[in-house]
């Protein structure tokens, strides 16, 4: 890709290079490159025998933005939303100034690699973990944005999914900062690019689909119909069909709701599962969440009914009194 090449050459450093911060004077020795994205390169580096991940970019703004996100994550207690931030500084090279930040090094394979190695029985567990983290992130007022398997690392043992790269993380209500087309609901014509929890849940559903299609697939009709068809063509996805479709259509208002539905599925006994997969045409039994919704609707309905009757009776009574007075 053209743009990555030009970007790479500008903040490219060789293993062994020592990077010293201008403000905090910490020294980092570059070990190797871990990866690169639209906004910079991430290196594995050593600082006093501690392994850290170092993100560098010549676009100082994006570095500052990401540091802001990581800092606010640190304020959310009791959960590990992203990698923890260790340092933020500038490195003065002869060719110019490069902004960087050091963070916790999260080691492990990415989500798709992990599932390919260990088998699809891990999919449900890891999704539940991910949705837990997303729930905490949403409650803190953020939306992850650029959610995709490349940004999900499985560390362990014990295996635990972690998010890396907060480049797309956006305050709720604003426009999503960074996204990848395949996981973006705007690209599939199924919603806006405004940051709300459902945006991340759409991406989570696409990740589920992605586990059955590791090479992704091209947009043809590019709508819900195409995605539905793709889900129905894979046996391992049928189990999650309802959850996926709910998430794709933005019917979950929180990550917790989606998590509970997946938990419910993994708890269901194997006999039940096989009936669902044997009759793919038949719709599966309604899920607890949607059933609850129906009940709520019914309750609401009866409430309005009572209100209406009371109003009519009151009106008639007043008319009667009025008539009497005249």
């Amino acid at each position: 890709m053209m743009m990555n090449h030009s970007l790479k050459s500008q903040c490219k450093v060789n293993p062994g290079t020592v990077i010293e911060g201008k403000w905090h004077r910490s020294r980092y020795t570059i070990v190797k490159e871990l990866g690169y994205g639209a906004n910079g390169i991430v290196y594995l580096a050593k600082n006093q025998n501690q392994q850290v991940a170092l993100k560098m970019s010549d676009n100082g703004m994006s570095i500052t933005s990401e540091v802001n996100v990581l800092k606010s994550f640190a304020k959310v207690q009791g959960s590990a939303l992203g990698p923890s931030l260790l340092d933020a500084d500038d490195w003065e090279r002869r060719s110019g100034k490069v902004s960087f930040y050091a963070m916790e090094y999260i080691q492990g394979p990415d989500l798709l690699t992990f599932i390919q190695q260990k088998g699809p029985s891990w999919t449900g567990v890891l999704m539940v973990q991910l949705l837990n983290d997303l729930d905490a992130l949403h409650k803190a007022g953020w939306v992850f944005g650029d959610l995709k398997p490349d940004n999900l690392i499985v560390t362990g043992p014990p295996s635990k999914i972690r998010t890396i790269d907060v480049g797309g993380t956006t305050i709720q209500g604003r426009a999503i900062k960074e996204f990848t087309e395949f996981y973006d609901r705007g690209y599939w014509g199924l919603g806006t690019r405004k940051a709300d929890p459902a945006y991340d849940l759409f991406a989570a559903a696409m990740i589920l689909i992605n586990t059955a299609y590791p090479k992704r697939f091209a947009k043809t009709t590019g709508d819900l119909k195409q995605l539905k068809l793709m889900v129905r063509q894979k046996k391992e996805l049928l189990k999650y069909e309802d959850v996926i479709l709910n998430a794709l259509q933005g019917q979950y208002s929180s990550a917790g709701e989606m998590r509970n539905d997946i938990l419910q599925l993994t708890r269901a006994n194997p006999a039940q599962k096989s009936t669902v997969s044997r009759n793919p045409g038949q719709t599966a039994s309604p899920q607890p969440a949607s059933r609850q919704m129906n009940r709520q609707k019914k309750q609401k309905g009866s409430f309005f009914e009572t209100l209406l009757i009371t109003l009519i009776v009151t009106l008639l009574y007043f008319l009667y009194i009025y008539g009497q007075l005249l």
Partner: protein
Amino acid sequence: MKTGTLKQILLITDGCSNQGEDPIAMAALAKEQGITVNVIGVMEQDVIDEQGMNEIEGIAMSGGGVSQVVYSQQLSQTVQMVTRKAMTQTLQGVVNKELQQILGGSKTMEDLPPDQRGEVMEVVDELGETVELEVLVLVDTSASMKHKLPTVKEALLDLSLSLNARSGDNRFSVFVFPGKKKDVEKLLDWTPNLESLTSIFSKLTTGGITPTGPAIHEALNHFKKKRSLRSLLSRDDESFFEESV
């Protein structure tokens, strides 16, 4: 801080201009009027030659904007990335100017220690979300662009989707060059969303010459016309003006 309107020209082309004024000079003129010029070079299998590359970079540089050369498959993401990047760049310029007034000298955001820089960045982010934006899109419809036009249309629809997710207002206008009779032809006047492009774009014909310079010049006039009309309505229209990035 005043929030005015950000004005951008987005030029989508696949090669060299060959008629009329020097596009790099026209881009410099745009910058003088507070209008940023961004350029996207679209490749197919072919590679843009060095002369074309120089022109693309030259226009963006003198227009105070961002340039990027991509394969047409990546156009959608690039169009929105370039527009956002140019917005941030302009806003950063505005914030830097304010900082210089407060701190004195030639201090910019980049000279602040990381902590304070983070606080200023939040202001820039906030402005980027709420500022009014006007984007005039200039599409090269010379013969070689013919089979790339459907992709360009998709990319523009995608751009309006991205920008309309912001809370600030957007206005788009689309011009093509060469036009049917003139060098440049207006396809779509200022509008908040680009939905109507779908029907217009399929009727487009492509032509031989590439009058990039005159196209930028005409685009500038279109910004001006609008401004004078607005002043008639006595709506004050403060615009960001940036001398250096």
